[in-house]
């Protein structure tokens, strides 16, 4: 039975009604009309050196993307631009179809849902593992609210959940400074998860990890994709091969090739600048 017009009007005018566009969404990012991350013609140079040169990149919602490229290819600079640390000389960077990243500052971008893991693991060493996660937990970040904030039941459960995922449940009360290198990497990934990001930027997650740790990380990355978009920058070709669906090769600040690992690995240009070159370190690692 359909509603009469009066009923429809009454429903519309209900005082407790919250219109969809007014309701605070978990994340305000609009991905209905396209990718979650859209970079167009980005260029930036430092003292005449072109770190990024006409870079175009799109990441779809829920995608797991690996970005590879030799040192100095502009991988970290690209992350700096996306997270608001560096401003490009020209180009556009959009998060969803509504948010212009080039007009926002780091905290705004972070609160919007872009989480970043640094190349060198940076955790708060003087704080416990649990406190590290607590600080990263999504919530009101204003000074006064932070002063009065108490860890509620829900938050504690969320921390337990993430501790489980990053396999640090037993280390909850230990200082982050005493963790092993690999554990710090995981803790940092855990902090990103606490933020409930829509897009995770992960810079060299397996640097300094042992073989089993690396497998666990690969596993973690694949599980994360789907719930959120993940961009992994990595040197380790074995690791990239184990998780990659789509690989983007950066070279001298722009995209050289894009496709599946096999396509990319067989691309003559890629072989030429990156995988080839005879005694290139990346090559030996790929073989090993």
């Amino acid at each position: 039975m359909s509603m009469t017009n009066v009923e429809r009007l009454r429903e519309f005018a209900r005082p407790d009604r919250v219109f969809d566009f007014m309701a605070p969404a978990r994340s305000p990012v609009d991905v209905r009309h396209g990718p979650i991350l859209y970079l167009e013609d980005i260029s930036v140079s430092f003292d005449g050196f072109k770190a990024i040169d006409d870079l175009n990149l799109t990441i779809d919602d829920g995608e797991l993307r690996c970005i590879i490229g030799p040192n100095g290819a502009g991988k970290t600079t690209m992350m700096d631009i996306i997270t608001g640390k560096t401003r490009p000389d020209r180009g556009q960077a959009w998060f969803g179809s509504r948010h212009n990243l080039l007009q926002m500052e780091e905290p705004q971008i972070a609160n919007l849902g872009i989480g970043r893991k640094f190349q060198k693991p940076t955790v708060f060493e003087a704080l416990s593992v649990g406190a590290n996660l607590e600080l990263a937990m999504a919530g009101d970040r204003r000074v006064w609210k932070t002063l009065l904030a108490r860890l509620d039941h829900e938050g504690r459960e969320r921390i337990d959940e993430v501790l489980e995922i990053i396999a640090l449940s037993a280390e909850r009360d230990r200082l982050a400074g005493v963790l092993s290198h690999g554990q710090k990497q995981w803790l940092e990934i855990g902090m990103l998860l606490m933020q409930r990001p829509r897009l995770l930027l992960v810079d060299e997650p397996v640097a300094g990890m042992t073989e089993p740790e690396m497998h666990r990380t690969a596993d973690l990355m694949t599980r994360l994709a789907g719930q959120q978009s993940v961009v992994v920058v990595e040197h380790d070709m074995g690791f990239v091969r184990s998780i990659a669906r789509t690989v983007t090769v950066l070279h001298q600040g722009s995209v050289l090739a894009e496709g599946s690992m096999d396509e990319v690995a067989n691309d003559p240009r890629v072989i030429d600048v990156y995988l080839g070159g005879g005694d290139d370190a990346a090559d030996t690692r790929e073989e090993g």
Partner: protein
Amino acid sequence: MSLATMFKRNSLLDERSTWITSIVLIVGMLVVVVLNALPPEHAWHLNGSVVTLLGKYLTYMLLALAVDLIWGYLGILSLGHGAFFALGGYAMGLYLTAQEAPLAAWQGVLAYFPVAALAVVLAPGLLALVFGWLAFRSRVTGVYFSIITQALTFALMLAFNRNEMDMGGSTGLTRFDELLGFSLSTEGMSVALFVASGVAVLLAFWGCKAITRSRLGRVCMATRDAEARVRFIGYRVEHVKLAVFVLSAMIAGIAGALYAPQVGIINPSTFAPLFSIEVVVWVALGGRATLYGALLGALLVNYFKTLLTGVMPDAWLFLLGGLFVVVTMFLPQGVAGLMAHLRRRREVAS
């Protein structure tokens, strides 16, 4: 001993240090008051001038607490905190002067105690707000920030030296006789000011402790250790810094306001860059990021200063400098760190 239990023990120790510090402060204050109340001919009688001297130490301890809050927990090394202390002192000094003779035009409002009391926190607070906003917004950190705080306090010293400021010029403000209608020269007033200073130290200590144990306190420590990371998880670092810096300046202002009537003078030398550096030495010597370390450091250094400047005044600065070098090299955690270390050793041994 596993690291997990060590961490638990450390947080427990932290808790215990709060209790011990509070009890020592309260008992110390009571002892001073009781000893002062003994008849003057009694061997243990503490006369008013000693009480005032101890009261002055308390205001220094309050100032050290303010410095530790931003240096120990937030990693901001202010070498100009004397400026906020002095501003609080001048606000109180102008009120005291107004009890004797009318002030120059705009200062007239300070003749009313509530206005003066407000100015004690607002003057340093506003200066810190403007200065901090400019500095933190431009992401001035580390040694650059320290240098501009030195410049700030030096500039203020030059300004307050000018007679045109109507602040007593280079002599400063000295004609203090009455506070709230009570004469400042009585022994009762000495005790009252001493107790007021002690209560201020206690309240500020608890307040700072509450802040450092809150989530905001953890954000501060996180900012101290990895500022970029804090930004990337979404905190506005400059707002956090500004809020704590302003609070710290206000505490310093209160300390200055309690200092002026006890010492009986406030002059531009309080703005001297050297004084602000000395405050930092107190905190470093006592131990950073513990709060009680700052209190201890301020008390110890100033007690020895009083002792030594009586015996050989020329040697004091050399000794202070030497002490700073020794502490930096051998006791990076200060006296507080040494005490914690000894306690741990004893616990491991037993």
